[in-house]
């Protein structure tokens, strides 16, 4: 028998998709039965009370959570987010319901043992409910009480070799795609870069001194499996400099139907014979491809790395051999004023250990943003407010054509007088002798 009647939540379970309500009910029943004899350190009926307070919020059309607080682990300014229920007498199981963020492994590679280890800690000391994963990419443990925080921190660091993630005005838990561990498109080792920078910037991750959140994400190629261009302040996206490699015999094999286009994706329906002109050449956003019936040609200078031809014919068309990454800055996805994508800052950088070139860009940006950024201002907003040109100055990067989206319609990169031979002064009288008014 459920602790609280939840008719509104029950309705959510009737939809076609798996329901979080069913999941929470399952955990509530599991905790009540306690088949493993766990010595629960927080109220057993925590998931039941979570359903109760959510039902009440649906009924009242108001939240019953208070958020924010001083809770955390000693010395860390992030990783724990305080949550309190404003109806603690009605729902004592969720009077405290703090969130704990844990840094996920690079590329989100887990072993079953690791996941069981995390869940053993979390079943004992928390609600047993998780969010795998949060939007930033970390493991999110939902709901525990203040006295359990240090215990959880000790256990995850000592037993699982796992650290808390980021929250607040911190560097947030960096995230990456699988990269070269699994993917032939990856232009650099995303996991090594992600892991190295996570370790190198521990102070920024745990002790907040930024105006607001700051996110790193690492995509191995422009397919953007972690969507760094949309979801991180500092987006590193793999790219290449040299020409796309084409194996003409294999192109013919695709045309002849010997290879399945797209690696056999969308195979649930008969789309007819593969048409290389319609499905690849005509889909090129810059029109830089042609196929004469025997040979596929690419005008590489006009390629924008959309990845469509490579994705469709991976056996025949491969990324160029000289690989590296582009760095873009300033994406954010705020609720009120709409999303902003990152802007290209470094068109090409070689990604090699110890990554000093990338770290220099990062640290110059931080120094500038910490000084100039307003409270609760993302670096993308600072960039818009103080100009892209200012950003180029502080990062010691020269303006180049790739920085300009549309020449003349938004000429936000201006020359300074000292950059122009002869300065801005000119002889008006001499000019007028040559040019009548």
């Amino acid at each position, binding site marked *: 028998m459920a602790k609280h009647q939840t008719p509104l939540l029950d309705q959510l379970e009737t939809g076609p998709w798996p329901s979080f309500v069913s999941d929470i009910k399952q955990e509530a029943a599991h905790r009540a039965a306690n088949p493993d004899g766990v010595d629960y350190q927080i109220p057993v009926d925590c998931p039941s009370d979570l359903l109760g307070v959510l039902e009440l919020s649906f009924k009242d059309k108001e939240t019953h959570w208070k958020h924010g607080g001083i809770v955390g682990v000693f010395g*860390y300014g992030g990783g724990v987010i305080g949550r309190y229920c404003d109806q603690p007498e009605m729902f004592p199981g969720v009077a405290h319901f703090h969130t704990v963020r844990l840094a996920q492994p690079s590329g989100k590679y887990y072993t079953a043992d690791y996941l069981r280890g995390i869940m053993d800690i979390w079943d004992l000391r928390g609600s047993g409910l998780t969010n795998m994963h949060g939007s930033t990419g970390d493991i999110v443990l939902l709901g525990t009480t203040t006295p359990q925080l240090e215990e959880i921190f000790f256990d995850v660091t000592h037993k699982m070799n796992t650290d808390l993630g980021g929250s607040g005005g911190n560097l947030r838990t960096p995230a990456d795609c699988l990269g070269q561990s699994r993917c032939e498109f990856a232009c650099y080792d995303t996991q090594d870069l992600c892991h190295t920078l996570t370790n190198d910037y521990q102070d920024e991750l745990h002790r907040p001194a*930024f105006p607001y959140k700051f996110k790193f994400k690492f995509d191995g190629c422009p397919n953007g499996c972690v969507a760094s261009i949309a979801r991180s302040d500092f987006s590193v996206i793999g790219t290449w400099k040299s020409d796309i490699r084409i194996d003409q015999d294999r192109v013919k094999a695709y045309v002849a139907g010997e290879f399945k286009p797209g690696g056999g994706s969308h195979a649930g329906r008969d789309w007819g014979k593969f048409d290389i002109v319609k499905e690849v050449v005509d889909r090129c956003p810059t029109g830089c491809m042609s196929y004469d019936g025997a040979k596929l040609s690419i005008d590489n200078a006009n390629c924008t790395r959309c990845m469509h031809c490579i994705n469709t014919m991976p056996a025949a068309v491969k990324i160029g051999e000289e690989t590296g990454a582009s760095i873009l800055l300033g994406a954010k996805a705020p609720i009120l004023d709409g999303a902003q994508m990152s802007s290209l800052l470094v068109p090409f950088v070689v990604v090699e250990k110890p990554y000093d070139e990338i770290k220099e860009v990062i640290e110059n940006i931080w120094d500038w943003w910490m000084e100039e950024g307003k409270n609760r201002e993302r670096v993308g907003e600072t960039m818009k407010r103080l100009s892209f040109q200012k950003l180029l100055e502080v990062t010691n990067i020269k303006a180049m054509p790739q920085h300009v989206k549309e020449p003349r319609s938004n000429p936000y990169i201006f020359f300074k007088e000292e950059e122009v031979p002869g300065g801005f002064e000119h002889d008006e009288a001499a000019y007028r002798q040559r040019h009548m008014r």
Partner: protein
Amino acid sequence: MPSEKEQVLEFLTGKTGKSKFYFSDFCKIFPDKKQREVKKVLTELVNEGKLEFWSSGSTTMYGMTGAGKQKAEED
């Protein structure tokens, strides 16, 4: 001349009417210092237990340990 830590504590116990402060508020106490140096002073005070973090989840602030109404949440 009071030490940097004393200056921070003096600022916090002064009549500001607030119990929690942004990092940038502390930078104003030391206009000639780099942000990272100010951060070191605050980190030391946190490690000594004199200051504590307050976090909403999205923003983080600093305050004197035990100051403000947040402490009551835990009692």
